[in-house]
């Protein structure tokens, strides 16, 4: 416990979705642009709810966005 890392593909998925802006993703997922920045930098791990909302914004599953590395 504690050494596990949760990686995400938000940056890649944004570019795959017509270069969606961080602002737009934040609006779709219900969070601020700063939180998206923090997520992309791997500084912040979202709640399960936000993770689902981000996945929904990309119209994909949570496993496609987040990867548990532990």
């Amino acid at each position, binding site marked *: 416990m504690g050494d596990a890392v949760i990686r995400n593909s938000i940056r890649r998925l944004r570019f795959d979705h017509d270069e969606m802006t961080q602002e737009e993703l*934040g*609006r779709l997922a219900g*969070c*601020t*642009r*700063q*939180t998206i920045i*923090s997520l992309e930098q791997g500084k912040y791990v*979202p709640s399960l709810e936000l993770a689902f909302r981000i996945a929904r914004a990309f119209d994909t599953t949570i496993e496609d966005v987040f990867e548990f590395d532990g």
Partner: protein
Amino acid sequence: MAPLQKRALIALVLGLVWTAILVILFVRVGGIEKFSTDATSRILLTLSFVAMLIANMFLGAPWKARYGRAVEVDERDMEILKRAPQVQLLAIMLTLAAWVIGLTEYYWDQGSIPIMWPYLMMFSTLIVSTLAQSLGVLIGYRRS
């Protein structure tokens, strides 16, 4: 900069400036002697303290309103806000320790502490507490 982070920075800067002004006024008006004997200066200073605390409370409060379609405060902001009291607690403990040790050592020979000091201890602790909340929020943003 996140909206809450911006407000915390403004609250901290304004709070520090206001505190500096209050301390200068307090010293220039006559310090503890005047504060304990002159009711008018005591009331004025007390009102200034309270005004500062209220202003800081409004600036530091999480703002849940949404401007247009952008989210102002989200779960990360709330998490940072929840962790800020750790900094507050430490600041309060250090402030109280500094006051108690300082006053006790200064008035050791006298055997008692003048009645007005606890009053100032309370206000300074409240001010430190509100400033430390803003500081805690800013530290939280630096870390996450």
